[in-house]
C-alpha cells in the first residue's frame, strides 16, 4: 500500500488551517468539549436523559453504532483496492483509511462519556474477564484490535512524510532520535507485512460490523418486529458495506470543495456502481426477512416506528439505489453527492431505529429524548473529528490530486501552514 502508483499523487493540502467553516466548527467543537468534560463532573444523571428503562441513548446509537458503520469506508475500500487489486481505486485508500482511523478513535472517545466506569474500559482485554458469550465483548475486542490495525496501516504515511525529517523543537528534541529510529524500523518492516494487517482489518470489520447487529437480538421481547431479526447481523454487515463507498464519495466531494481541488469524478462515479448492487441485496434480504417473520404489515401500523422504518427504506435504500443506477446522475457530482448523502442518512437512521426507536422497554416512565448535553457532546465529537481530519490532510499526504490541478495550485502559489 505504500508503493505509489504512477497516476496517484497524494499531497499535503496547501491551505490555511482556519477557514470560515473551520472557525465555526471550532466553536461547536469547543462547546461539545465543554459538555464532554461537564459530564465527568456531574455524572450521567445530570448530563443525560437516560433512566432504568432507557439505559442507552444517542451516545450509543450515534457516536458508537453509527460511528462504526460510517467508518466502513476503510475496510470496503481496502478490500476493493488492495485485496481485489482494483488499482484505479488506489487514490481513495488513504482518505478512507484516515476516516476509519479517526472514526474509530472517536467511537472510543464517545464511549468513554457513556460508560459509568470509564476508567475500567480496559477490562475486556484482561483474560480473567473475557466473556466469550457476550456479543458486546466480541464487538469490544474486535474494535480494539481493529483500531490498532488502522494505526499500523496509517504508519507508512507517517514514514513517508517524516522519515529523516523528524525535527521536534527545544525540549522535545530529545525524542528526535528514538522517533527517527522507530520510523526507520517501521519503514523496513511494514512494506513486507502490510498485507497481513489489510486482510486482518477486513476480517475484523466483518466480525464486529455484524456483531453490532446481534447486540439488540438479546432483547427479543422489547424490540419492534420491524427490526427484531435473527438476521440482524447479516443486515448490519451489508448496510455497513453499502455505506462504505458513499462515505468515501461524500467526503471526497466535501474535501475537494474545501481544498478547492477537482473532485475525482471518474473514480467516484465508478465506485458508486457497487452501491446499488449491495443496497439491492440488502433490500431483498430485509424484505424476505420481514415476510418470513410475518412482520411486513407493521409498515402500515401508523406508529413512529412504522414511519421511521418507511423513511429509512425509502430515503436510505430505495431512492439512492434508483439514482445510482442512472448513469446521468452517477456521472454528475451533485447527483453523486445527494445519493451518497441519502445512503449515509439511511444507515445512521437505521442505527438510531435499531438502538432507540425499536427499543420499547417494559414499565416505561418517560420516552427517551436526548438531553442538550448529550446532543452537544455528539455534535461536538463530529465537529472535532472533521477538524482533526483537516489537520491531518494538511500535515500528511493523504488526498490525491490529479496532475492538472496540481500545476494550477502551484501557479496560484498558495501558502500552507506546513511547507
Amino acid at each position: 500500500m505504500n508503493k505509489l502508483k504512477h497516476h496517484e499523487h497524494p499531497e499535503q493540502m496547501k491551505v490555511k488551517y482556519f477557514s470560515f467553516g473551520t472557525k465555526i466548527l471550532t466553536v461547536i467543537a469547543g462547546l461539545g468539549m465543554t459538555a464532554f468534560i461537564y459530564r465527568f463532573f456531574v455524572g450521567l444523571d445530570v448530563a443525560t436523559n437516560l433512566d432504568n428503562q432507557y439505559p442507552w441513548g444517542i451516545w450509543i446509537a450515534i457516536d458508537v453504532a453509527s460511528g462504526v458503520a460510517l467508518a466502513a469506508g476503510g475496510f470496503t475500500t481496502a478490500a476493493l483496492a488492495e485485496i481485489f487489486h482494483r488499482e484505479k481505486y488506489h487514490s481513495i485508500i488513504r482518505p478512507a483509511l484516515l476516516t476509519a482511523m479517526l472514526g474509530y478513535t472517536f467511537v472510543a472517545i464517545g464511549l468513554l462519556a457513556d460508560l459509568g466506569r470509564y476508567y475500567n474500559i480496559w477490562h475486556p482485554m484482561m483474560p480473567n474477564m473475557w466473556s466469550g458469550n457476550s456479543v458486546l465483548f466480541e464487538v469490544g475486542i474486535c474494535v480494539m484490535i481493529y483500531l490498532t490495525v488502522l494505526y499500523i496501516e496509517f504508519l507508512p504515511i507517517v514514514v513517508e512524510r517524516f522519515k529523516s525529517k523528524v525535527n521536534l523543537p527545544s525540549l522535545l528534541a530529545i525524542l528526535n532520535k528514538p522517533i527517527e529510529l522507530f520510523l526507520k524500523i517501521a519503514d523496513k518492516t511494514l512494506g513486507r507485512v502490510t498485507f497481513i494487517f489489510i486482510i486482518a482489518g477486513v476480517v475484523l470489520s466483518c466480525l464486529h460490523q455484524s456483531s453490532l447487529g446481534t447486540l439488540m437480538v438479546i432483547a427479543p421481547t422489547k424490540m419492534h418486529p420491524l427490526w427484531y431479526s435473527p438476521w440482524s447481523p447479516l443486515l448490519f454487515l451489508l448496510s455497513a458495506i453499502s455505506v462504505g463507498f458513499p462515505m468515501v464519495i461524500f467526503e471526497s466531494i466535501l474535501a475537494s470543495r474545501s481544498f478547492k481541488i477537482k473532485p475525482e469524478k471518474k473514480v467516484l462515479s465508478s465506485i458508486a456502481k457497487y452501491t446499488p448492487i449491495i443496497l439491492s441485496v440488502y433490500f431483498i434480504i430485509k424484505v424476505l426477512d420481514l415476510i418470513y417473520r410475518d412482520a411486513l404489515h407493521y409498515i402500515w401500523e401508523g406508529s413512529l416506528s412504522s414511519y421511521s422504518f418507511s423513511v429509512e427504506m425509502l430515503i436510505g435504500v430505495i431512492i439512492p439505489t434508483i439514482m445510482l443506477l442512472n448513469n446521468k446522475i452517477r456521472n454528475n457530482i451533485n447527483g453523486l453527492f445527494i445519493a451518497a448523502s441519502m445512503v449515509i442518512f439511511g444507515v445512521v437512521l437505521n442505527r438510531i431505529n435499531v438502538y432507540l426507536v425499536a427499543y420499547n422497554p417494559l414499565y416505561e416512565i418517560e420516552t427517551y429524548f436526548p438531553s442538550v448535553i448529550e446532543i452537544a457532546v455528539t455534535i461536538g465529537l463530529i465537529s472535532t473529528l472533521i477538524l482533526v481530519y483537516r489537520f491531518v490532510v494538511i500535515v500528511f499526504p493523504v488526498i490525491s490530486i490529479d496532475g492538472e490541478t496540481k500545476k494550477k495550485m502551484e501557479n496560484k502559489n498558495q501558502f500552507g501552514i506546513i511547507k
Partner: protein
Amino acid sequence: MEKKRREFLKVIAAGTSGLIGGSALASESSSKKDTGSYLGVLVDTVNCIGCRKCEWACNQENQEEKLELAKFESKEVFKTSRRMESDKFTVVNSYDNPKAPEEKSFLKVQCMHCNEPACVSACIVGALTKSENGAVSYDAWKCIGCRYCIVACPFQVPTYEYHDVLTPEVKKCTFCYHLIKEGKAPACVEICPEEALTFGTRKDLIELAYSRIKKSPDKYYPYIYGEKDIGGTSWMYLTGVNYNKTQLPELPERPIPEITESIQHGIFKSFIPPLALYGLLGLIMYSTKEKENSEGGENE
C-alpha cells in the same frame, strides 16, 4: 470487470454465509439448566396482604441508609405501580383480583434470578454471574458501566446509580446471597408474616405450587409463572388471575441467551469462520495480484 464484480459479490456472500450460517452449529452455551441445586422463592400473590414488611426487611439488610418501618406502612403507594430503584431492590404493587373483589391482591417484584439469565450472557466483563445456588450476583469491581445488562433483562430489573458521578453500580436484588449461602432465608422471606413467600429448592417449590393450585383451584390461576417462562426463574409466582393481567410480562419459554449465543458461537466456532474468511481473502489478494502482473499492471 463483470467477472470481477461477480467475484467480489460471491466472496462477500461466502464470507457472510460463513459468519451467519454457522449459527446453525450452535455450540456450548453459558447457561446451565437447573439440576436441582437452584434455590428459589415461591411468591403466593393470593396470600400476600400487602404489609410491605419485605420492603423494609430488604432495606435493613441491603441498604446503607436504614429507614424506619413506619416509612413502609403507607398503603398510598398502591395507587400507582412502582418499580425498583437503585436503593430499593424490591417493591410491592397491587393488582385487581375479581376472585376477591373486596380486597386487592398484591405482587412483590424483584430480580427473578433466571435459570439462564440474559444479563449474565450479555455482560462484557463477566461482572454478572449465576451461582450454583441460583443467585445472580454482581461484581462492581469488574463492571465498566455499559448498562447492556439493563438492555438485556426481559423483566427490566437492573437499575443504575446514574446519580453516582465516580463509582456508579448496577443495583438489583442479590437474593441475599450472603444469607442463602449460609443456609439462611433471604431477609424478605424471613420477615413475611403470611404464607406469601416460601424459600426452598426450585424443585420443591414447583411441587408446592402445584399442590396449592390443586387444593384450592378456585383461588389460583392454574399456572406457575417462572417455572418455564424464559427458561425458568428462581423466583416463581402464583396469581389469582391470569398473570398477564398483572405486571408480570408475557415471555416466551425459550431462554434469551440461546438465540444470541448460537449466533455468537456460530461466528466464532473454534475461530474457523474468521480464519476461513482470512484465508479466502488472502487467496484472492494473491491471485488477483498474479493476474495483474501477468497482464502487465493496469487491468482496466
